[in-house]
């Protein structure tokens, strides 16, 4: 079984409240982005954050699991749209914790009904690497419906 390695790099200068950093996709070179604490917990002001990167990771992991489950059920998708919303909150004395990841999936899937789509979405949640991991601290919810968000 191949071992796939992916690396990212973060550089931070100064204190957490007044300093700033960058985060770079070291393996693919697909992005290099600024980040600050203020934009992480307040208005993002065009800057990404660890939580937004996790939202992108979960959405992109879930979408491949869902496509795979639909194909296995004999109804491969034409098009899938997945949105992920990650919430971080202060939890008692524990400080900040990632408390939820809400997935919304919309699909254009020939010959698949709503029940079949919902069933594939539940199986995708069970099979998605990221869903399994993040349940260590967060609740994962899945809202799956047929029909594209943009009506196609």
């Amino acid at each position: 079984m191949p071992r796939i390695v992916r690396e990212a790099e973060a550089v931070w200068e100064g204190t957490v409240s007044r300093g700033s950093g960058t985060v770079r996709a070291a393996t693919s070179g697909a992005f290099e982005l600024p980040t600050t604490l203020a934009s992480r917990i307040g208005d993002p002001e065009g800057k990404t954050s660890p939580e937004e990167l996790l939202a992108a990771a979960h959405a992109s992991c879930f979408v491949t699991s869902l496509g795979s489950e639909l194909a296995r059920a004999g109804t491969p998708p034409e098009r899938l749209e997945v949105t992920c919303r990650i919430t971080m909150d202060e939890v008692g004395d524990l400080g900040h914790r990632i408390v939820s990841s809400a997935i919304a999936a919309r699909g254009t899937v020939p010959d698949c009904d709503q029940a079949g789509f919902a069933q594939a979405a539940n199986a995708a949640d069970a099979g998605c690497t990221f869903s399994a991991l993040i349940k260590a601290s967060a609740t994962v919810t899945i809202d799956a419906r047929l029909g594209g968000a943009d009506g196609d």
Partner: protein
Amino acid sequence: MATERTAEVTWKGSLMEGSGSIDRVGSEAFGPLDITWASRAEPESSGRTSPEELIAAAHASCFSMSLSHGLAQAGAPPSQLQTSATVTFVPGTGITKIALRVRGDVPGLDDAGFCEAAETAKENCPVSKALASVPEITLDASLA
């Protein structure tokens, strides 16, 4: 106060032959970024990101902020922290390991103090907590 962050992904076609895109994120800091199964599950990324690389980016940036906070609280704010996170993914099994490596430029702090602060950040940063079920998370910390 709760903070929410969002991302939107589209996929077209089958897993093996199809392809997708991280269309946009709430901050609009990046996107669209192409994704494919091949660039995720084969050793070569072909310039495309993947869920595992995004997890590495989230972990490296979260750990860095947490460590910066811990060092400042201990009276030794860093000049610079340089962190890498390497995620190992085995298709069919999942993420088996995350290796954190940090080099710090921290005036007035010795190596032992830096390593202790780094260990605390590794244990307590929100992304470490969220990924606590990864079988192995390692840390290599030293002053630059």
